[in-house]
């Protein structure tokens, strides 16, 4: 098993862990990488902040069905 990983892999794991999709082993590798890589530490910090920022708001999106209804109404009106 390889303990040392490259930056792109580290970023990939970091992305996955924002969605809780990184395995424990991946997270260990990421953290070891972060010990010595300043660049990835920055990326990870920014990435975590983005996750936290988005979680702190209550963004509500319209579901596809609702959008379809809106679109149909608008298209009908455009044809007139």
């Amino acid at each position, binding site marked *: 098993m390889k303990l040392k990983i490259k930056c792109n892999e580290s970023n990939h794991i970091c992305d*996955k862990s924002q969605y809780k999709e990184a395995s424990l082993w991946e997270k260990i590798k990421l953290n070891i990488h972060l010990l010595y890589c300043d660049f990835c530490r920055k990326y990870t910090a920014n990435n975590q902040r983005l996750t936290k*920022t988005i979680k702190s708001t209550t963004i509500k*999106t319209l579901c596809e069905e609702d959008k379809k209804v809106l*679109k149909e*109404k608008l298209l009908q009106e*455009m044809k007139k």
Partner: protein
Amino acid sequence: MDKIELHPETWVDRYSDYLYNYTIVRVNDHEVAQDIISETFLAGLKSKDNFKGEATERTWLIAILKRKIIDYYRKINSSKGKAEMRISYNDSNNEGDWLEEKIQDDSAMNAEESMENEELGLAILQCLDSINEKQAEIFKLKTLDGVDTETICNEYNITPSNLWVIIHRARKAMADCLETNWFNK
């Protein structure tokens, strides 16, 4: 400066989430919010020729939306007022106008904190609109709607590693955009 043109056929995809978030905190009812947004789009279409091309589409639609929200409050207040008039006028001397005052002062509708929260939400949606369209779509599904990787991959016919590349680019662009438009505002 080039004049901005309107593209009604893209409105729903580009602005409906933004308008919905703006509306839902003000009317607090999904159905009502949806009706108001629909009315906004139709009104926008009708007065298309009045658009001078000086504001962005978003700003213009928001201006219409604001009027629609006020109209909505006027409507419910005029029917509600009949039932509540007696109570509110009897309570104290000058407080009978409270309902009307409440709708006029837009800023008093929410506590400061929820205003900030709302603004941040809108800033995020605005950033989403400024990044690559496909990246934004997939990012939105994954991050805001919480759709799982497999479903998105099937829907867009991409591999998981494609998906993660897209997510990575989108996250970078979003972080940059929020950095300039929110954190360093």
